[in-house]
């Protein structure tokens, strides 16, 4: 029976990719070793579809690969100059909507937002910077939360809820006012039961959640994305969820 089900297929950039019912386009692509850029997707968690970086054209309509269930005979285009330029614009918007000063960020070189920008050959953020006022929360003994760098991917929210069973993080507000909140009356991370060993402390794709006392243990120039593209790193399933900041 399994073999029969396996025979269903979609095509991605002309390549036939098999899938089983219930898999998304992203699941099928990852399993087949076909790279579709993504930031908020991590196969360990329920897909959320909030960064839109995985935008693909499905039978001529743009959709997010991480949330769209694969269906027989779908014709998917992903690796096209048009889609990469849309993706670059999305990444540029993420840069100007936060405060990303990479030379002063401990995640630099290990950061997936930055790595996605490298992959898409982003030379400048292009748009006007918002320079939004955002908080840094250093109240926790082992972890910094720097909202200047949060891209609202909700991976920490999902990890804390689904894996740690704690619900330390949530998202509040709408539109440009959307922001990450911490589940404590004071709103401070130090007043939660968040622990450095939590899954949620390991999944942040950016420098928004940083483990304290790790600073510059690995020098700039020797970090994950200094020599490897995000497309290679995200296709190494065993390594992709290991802590990026150690």
């Amino acid at each position, binding site marked *: 029976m399994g073999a029969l089900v396996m025979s269903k297929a979609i095509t991605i950039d002309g390549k036939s990719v098999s899938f089983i019912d219930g898999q998304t386009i992203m699941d099928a692509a990852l399993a087949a070793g076909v790279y579709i850029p993504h930031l908020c997707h991590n196969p360990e968690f329920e897909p959320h579809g909030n960064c839109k970086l995985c935008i693909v054209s499905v039978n001529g309509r743009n959709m997010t690969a991480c949330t769209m269930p694969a269906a027989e005979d779908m014709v998917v285009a992903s690796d096209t100059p048009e889609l990469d330029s849309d993706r670059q614009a999305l990444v540029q918007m993420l840069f100007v909507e936060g405060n990303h*000063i*990479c*030379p002063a960020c401990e995640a*630099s*070189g290990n950061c997936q937002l930055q790595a996605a920008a*490298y992959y898409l050959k982003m030379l*400048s953020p292009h748009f006007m910077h918002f*320079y939004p006022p955002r908080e840094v929360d250093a109240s926790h003994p082992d972890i910094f939360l720097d909202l200047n760098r949060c891209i609202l991917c909700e991976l920490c929210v999902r990890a804390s809820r689904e894996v740690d069973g704690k619900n330390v993080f949530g998202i509040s507000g709408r539109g440009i006012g959307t922001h990450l909140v911490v589940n404590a009356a004071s709103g401070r991370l130090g007043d939660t039961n968040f622990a450095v060993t939590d899954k949620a402390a390991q999944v942040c794709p950016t420098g928004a959640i940083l483990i304290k006392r790790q600073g510059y243990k690995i020098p700039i120039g020797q970090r994950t994305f200094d020599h490897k593209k995000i497309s290679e790193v995200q296709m190494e399933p065993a390594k992709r969820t290991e802590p990026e900041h150690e």
Partner: protein
Amino acid sequence: MNEKRKIRVATCSLAGCFGCHMSLLDIDEKLFDLLGVIEFDRTPFTDIKHCGPCDIGIVEGGVSNAENVHVLKEFRENCKVLVAIGACAITGGVPALRNNIDLWDCFQEVYLYEGGLEGNQIPNDPELPLPFDKVYPIYEVVKVDYFLPGCPPSADTIWKFLTDLIEGREPKLDYEMLHYD
């Protein structure tokens, strides 16, 4: 004219740390090759005070005060091709860390709480340019033709970029040459 006209290049540092200029000097003996085909107009190397007509203008640093705007506009008006070099020119960079701190608070922190050589006072000489409330990337003030990221870009990256540009190719950086840090 049998000698090929040299490409005229101007450079300046606005709200930057001169790191990008140091990295340019780091191309070492290739500087001689470079000087075979280019000549400098206004730069910290020549001490020429104003930018004249140039082929290429290279701007390091963001815009943090009124003088930065005057210099930047002079570059834009005189340079056929304007290049933003380094994180500060492209994003505001480290100086933009002050963008969410009130300017008055910054001044008090720097000049009042910890006394300087002249005691505890905020400098207020009419010669000093007016600081802005925020530091801006240069592309938010003038049109920029090329961006060369890095903090600073390495000497090799600068060399690759400049040789592409000077030889009339669209500058192209390999993966390992594109960095924001």
